[in-house]
């Protein structure tokens, strides 16, 4: 059984096939209530300094999935399937930063996180452009937000299938997002 899996994965080298299978399977099963927005690259304001006075209204692209418990549990599954866990653990961080805390380098709103996943970020966050369907990126973004209690409790995943690692996303303490004061890049010359 397992050897067969391993064979499959390695024969295809990049497991692309597997992704395609997953992607199409999801399309079949997805329960989509709002059509996903077409823009995947919303403008992210990274500075509080905005010359000329009146701050620009932030262009916020609405997430189509944040109120959908089904999408959220899908997001949780995708978070391991796409190896986000390998770099962010179960939200506490490893190679990449913690996603369950209040500190955000690149913004905590759904659109910013969507952009983080699609574009990548300079200090080691890979760009998943073209690798993950747009709808799944929204599911992932919503799940990422649930890690720090940003979503309604009845939407966030309530249990884990695996090792009980920390409070479920439903019971996690809500953190007030804060822009990181020291960007990682400045910390390391």
């Amino acid at each position, binding site marked *: 059984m*397992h*050897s067969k*899996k*391993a*064979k499959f*994965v*390695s*024969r295809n*080298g*990049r*497991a692309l096939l*597997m*992704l395609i299978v997953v992607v199409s399977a999801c399309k079949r099963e997805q329960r989509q209530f709002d059509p996903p927005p077409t823009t995947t690259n919303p403008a992210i304001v990274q500075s509080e300094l905005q010359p000329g006075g009146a701050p620009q209204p932030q262009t916020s692209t609405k997430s189509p999935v944040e109120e959908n418990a089904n999408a959220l549990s899908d997001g949780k599954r995708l978070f*391991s*399937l*796409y*190896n986000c*866990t*390998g*770099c962010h*653990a*179960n*939200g*506490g*961080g*490893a*190679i*990449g*930063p*913690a996603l*369950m*805390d209040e*500190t955000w380098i690149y913004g905590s709103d759904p659109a910013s996180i969507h952009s983080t996943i699609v574009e*990548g970020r*300079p*200090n*080691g*966050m*890979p760009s998943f452009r073209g*690798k993950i369907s747009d709808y799944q990126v929204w599911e992932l973004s919503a799940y990422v937000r649930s890690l720090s209690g940003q979503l309604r409790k009845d939407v966030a995943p309530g249990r884990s299938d*695996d*090792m009980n*690692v*920390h*409070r479920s996303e439903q019971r996690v303490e809500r953190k007030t997002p804060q822009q990181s004061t020291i960007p990682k*890049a400045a*910390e*390391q*010359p």
Partner: protein
Amino acid sequence: MTGRNAPGFLLLIISLNLAFAACARRENSQPSGLPNRVQNQPTGAQQTGVETDDGQWTMPAKDYASTRFSSLDQINSSNVASLKLAWSFSTSVLRGHEAAPIVANNTMYVVTPYPNIVYALDLTQPGGPVKWKYESKPASASQGVACCDVINRGVVYADGKIFFNTLDDYTIGLDAASGKELWKTHVGDINKGETMTMAPLVVKDKVLIGNSGGEFGVRGWLTALDATSGKIAWRAYHTGPDADVLIGQNFHPFYTQDKGKDLGISSWPADAWRIGGGTTWGWISYDPDQDLIFYGTGNPGPWNPEQRPGDNKWTCGIFARKPENGEAVWYYQFSPHDLHDYDGVNEQILLDLPVNGQTRKVLVRPERNGYVYVLDRTNGQVLSANPYAYITSSKGVDLNSGQFLYNETKNPQAGKVIREICPAAPGAKDWQPSAFSPRTGLLYIPHQNLCMDMEGLEANYIAGTPYVGANVKMYAGPGGNRGEFLAWDPVKGEKVWAIQEKFPVWSGAVATAGDLVFYGTMDGWFKAVDAHSGQLVWQFKCGSGIIGQPISYRGPDGKQYVAVLAGVGGWSGAIVAAGLDPRDPTGALGFVNAMTDLPDATTKGGMLYVFALP
């Protein structure tokens, strides 16, 4: 503290009798129990272009036998109490500093973690001012594929040149005098998850280097570059067909399980060897008499063992090779079909030891799986393997067959949490190198005391992302101390004394002819202990936790100095260096669970400290 105490002295006598009869004179402490290459180094001295005198420190392990022993004895137990900070230097980098400072021709060379800046500090001037600085500017994306902090284990000096590796897979040769770049060779690919963290070793005209990325499904290798041109001379892979592994007619492993054609393919599920790990991020030793290099291979990928039935050759083992062309001469696998991330990359100290009344050429290897192995370095035979830590994951090593005896109740399984696996994934000892003193005959081993709970998960291979497949939580082993610094008698195969430390001892060690041993702790104490008794004789609180490799050298003023880099981080210190969230026990591959109190004990900051007597 004054003089030697009685038990220490007794020990010295015993060790001298057993192993090293010629070390009696304190001032002339040529390490005569070592393989004769230390005094009579056909390469070392000539090839590195430096004085035969032992006052320098040209490679992280000090010498080819990897003793980390300094024959300087000005600082000893009678005066160490007055050891003072001579000068210090900020590296301007905040991540984990694992490198050894390198000293050659009155210059000290230090490489920082990413972004891998090399500083040359002028030891002839007060305070060691910067002579030159080289910025290697690695791709910032490489930080994303470094499994366990963005560390670097040091530069090496040879023949007027400095060699080092960058996180984004370049090996660089610099002119040691000017810092001018002589060559820069691209040897790996971050998009496959390859990085480089190890310190090269120079043997004759070859610069030996290896890759990191065992948590990314990379294919491990050791590569030799021509020291003059930087061109690749040969590359030996650690998985795949014999031709790629450089296994040919002269390959004679000692045990049957390592014999056969293309085991690097047949000991894996089809094609899994292509992403099977077996990286080289640890230490290489060299025996000029036999003209052989010895080094180990890392864990197979993914961690979840159920995805890779078979012995997974040639991961978690040790190779002896010819430096000239890389051809393999023998191999031994410490942990076949690795179950617990027990990489086989630790240091091997080359010694001549009495074994059953006969002097044997051996290598001593405090292995990650918890045993100190003594191998006959001429053929790879295991002469002994004795536990130096608390072990539940195995029952020992069968000395007849060389087989590692797993305790099956601790085998990880998918979807099931197996508890109390000891040692944990970083092993009883990770990369942090031991030191050996020919004067005491003891090996000084910095290590950790950790156990783990582990659950296998299905790992999905996507190039350039982690390929692990496990949930892990680590915690202190019996006794509650997470670290230990111990003295080991390699002849008797037993512990002589041990110092319990709160945190894993993640620093290297240096032993000196002043019969002192230095090491550092993750909460920032740099310590000197009596080499015979283990008694603490001096300590200094550094600004950040210590995970670097201490060294000792003679300055241009004729004085003995001791130097170390502080700067917490590494796998164990990632919670501080990367600011991880303590609420997720699986953070940093499960290490966070064991280190939640580290942020209260230390803060980050890379700083070099140099000590001397007033």
